[in-house]
């Protein structure tokens, strides 16, 4: 059986970029809060819809987008800001009240599931359940010519932006005052506040950044497949979880490596002719890694997150 290896590599690469970008937000929140924010996938969808609304205007509330009011590229910053704000709102509504009362982690987890359901429902009420898309021809998704493989400008953009944001996040967390602040809060809120850190504000900042990353991923996803539904987060939600468990909960490099690894496994299990057991490959790998390295590939234990 023939395999078109270069093309499959392209397929894996850009999909990996999306997975990683999405998983980064999960990882960031995990590293700061020490818990999974299961509303992340809903924020992902919110980002895509904010972008859609920004580019298309009120039209999207009633029908589908037939004409762009603004240039297509505005959708990415719009989605990032919009999803960032939504994410902060999720923190204030779903996490903050529980945090104040020192509620058990499990309650916060459940609360985040509730927030996800709420957000998806709100999207559904606003935009309807049907698929939304950008007008034909408005997205540069004709393959770049002159290459031996098929890759579209939007895929290249997605990959470049994903890599850029990952790099930026790494610098931010490892090298800046804000990064030290977030890592300190992650380690111990009390100590952080004794050093003068406004812990609530740190949380909001972390949620904003995580939301913006989810929004960027959601928008790129929406653009690349030119399809957005309120439920679009569902399919990546589990992938994102797998990615961060694989990479090591809360590890930024782990999320990136995990994202590309899972995309590669998915694509190449299909390429090798086993599309029927693709997900089995992914979960087998996950299982093996959890048995051999319970902390994930790059996980470094709880005291050493972020």
């Amino acid at each position: 059986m023939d395999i078109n290896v270069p093309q499959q590599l392209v397929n894996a690469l850009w999909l990996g970029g999306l997975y990683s970008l999405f998983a980064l937000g999960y990882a960031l929140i995990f590293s700061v809060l020490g818990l999974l924010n299961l509303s992340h996938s809903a924020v992902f969808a919110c980002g895509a819809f904010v972008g859609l609304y920004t580019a298309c205007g009120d039209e999207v509330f009633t029908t589908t987008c037939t004409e762009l009011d603004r240039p297509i590229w505005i959708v990415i910053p719009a989605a990032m800001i919009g999803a960032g704000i939504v994410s902060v709102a999720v923190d204030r509504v779903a996490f903050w009240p529980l945090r104040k009362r020192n509620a058990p982690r499990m309650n916060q987890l459940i609360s985040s599931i509730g927030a996800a359901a709420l957000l998806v429902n709100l999207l559904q009420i606003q935009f309807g359940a049907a698929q939304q898309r950008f007008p034909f021809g408005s997205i540069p998704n004709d393959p770049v010519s002159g290459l031996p493989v098929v890759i579209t400008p939007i895929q290249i953009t997605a990959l470049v932006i994903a890599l850029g944001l990952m790099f930026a996040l790494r610098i931010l967390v490892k090298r800046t005052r804000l990064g030290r602040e977030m890592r300190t809060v992650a380690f111990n809120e009390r100590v952080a506040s004794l050093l003068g850190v406004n812990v609530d504000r740190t949380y909001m900042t972390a949620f904003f950044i995580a939301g913006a990353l989810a929004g960027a991923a959601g928008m790129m996803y929406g653009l690349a497949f030119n399809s957005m539904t309120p439920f679009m987060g569902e399919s990546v939600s589990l992938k994102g979880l797998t990615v961060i468990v694989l990479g090591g909960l809360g590890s930024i490099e782990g999320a990136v490596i995990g994202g590309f690894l899972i995309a590669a496994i998915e694509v190449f299990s299909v390429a090798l002719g086993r599309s029927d057991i693709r997900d089995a490959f992914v979960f087998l790998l996950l299982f093996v890694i959890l048995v051999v390295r319970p902390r994930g590939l790059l996980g470094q234990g709880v005291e050493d997150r972020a």
Partner: protein
Amino acid sequence: MKTLIRTIVVLTFALVAVVPFQVQAQDGGGMGAWDGCPVPENLPEEVTIGAVFGLSGNIAAYGEPQKRGVELAVAEINEAGYLGEGTTLIAVFEDGGSDGEASIAAMDKLIAENELAAVIGPTLSAQAFAADPIAAENGVVVLGVSNTAAGLTTMNEDEELDQFIFRNSLPEANVIPNTITKSTEILGLERVGVIYGNDDDFTLSGYDAFADALEASEVEVVRTETFARGDVDFSPQLTNIINDDPDAIVVSALIAEAVPVVLQARQLGYTGPIIGGNGFNSPALFAQGGEAAEGVIVGAAWNIGSPSELSVTFTETFTEAYGAAPDQFAAQAYTGAWLVATAIRCADSADSADVREALAAIVDYPTPLGSFSFDETRNPVHEPVVQIVQEGMFKLLTEETAAQAFGE
């Protein structure tokens, strides 16, 4: 309020619009001119039929055209005095929602509140599996006009109950072989790649039907790929298939996956035919697939381009009445209402048991779907059509349209 006004306007328009058709029906002997039975004499002043369609939410995209189809047929039937002078056919619509529970509730309500000669619906196969037994247990005949799942009319333990369950919508298993034979004949297919959803009853049974049909037509399957529900990226599978340079890609998918499969295949540079199952039979294919949908081939029970006289007339009347062209759902619902009316007429009774007998006896009845009969398991028998997407709409697949699409 706005919708109410719109409904009134449309209905008025519908009533006015059917008049010219009426004349034609009497002259040319269109629908209803089945000379199987004489004009009935013993019918009451009003005969009521029920209809359970999904009229709210997402599913209204199917339920709304179905309702219009039935309304149009009922208006025509009454205008023509098809059930005898002094007898009026009344259709009571109930919203069956989008799940089984809602259609059970709708069916219960219809049966409790009306003396029914028959029920048409529900919209989805899953709803039919849930709600049809209720009608059967109450001795009311139920005619599905859009259910395509296998085994629908033989779903009950008790064969007596099955006798009340009919459908006029061709099951996939009947449509697909025809699609493959016609496509093979017209496009000269020799080797194809297949992709299907392997975790869904509908797409699985579609795949089986395709596989059998391809084997029967001696077409080689060079590669088979699968995907799961909710997948959005099909590039790896399609890259594989396209790499094998097939004459066509055969797809068994629901519309949610069908559209991205088509989009991504085109994006990967594939320009050849894509042959789909019933899941492709949706306006969403054009709305969301756009140019990529050009050259997609789909089997169906009915197509707007069908040249038969009854079909053309139906399309014209419907378009005039509602300001929008009918789809397959409308055509099947319209035909369904006429079938039920014909059974009532032949039975000369509004009693559902008598109507059931008469319905089962219908043979070679001319309809927009073609010459129509029920087989012994109350499934429809009529010739399906094969369509190809061209310029953003379904056209019949012919040597001509194929040549335009694939430039031979």
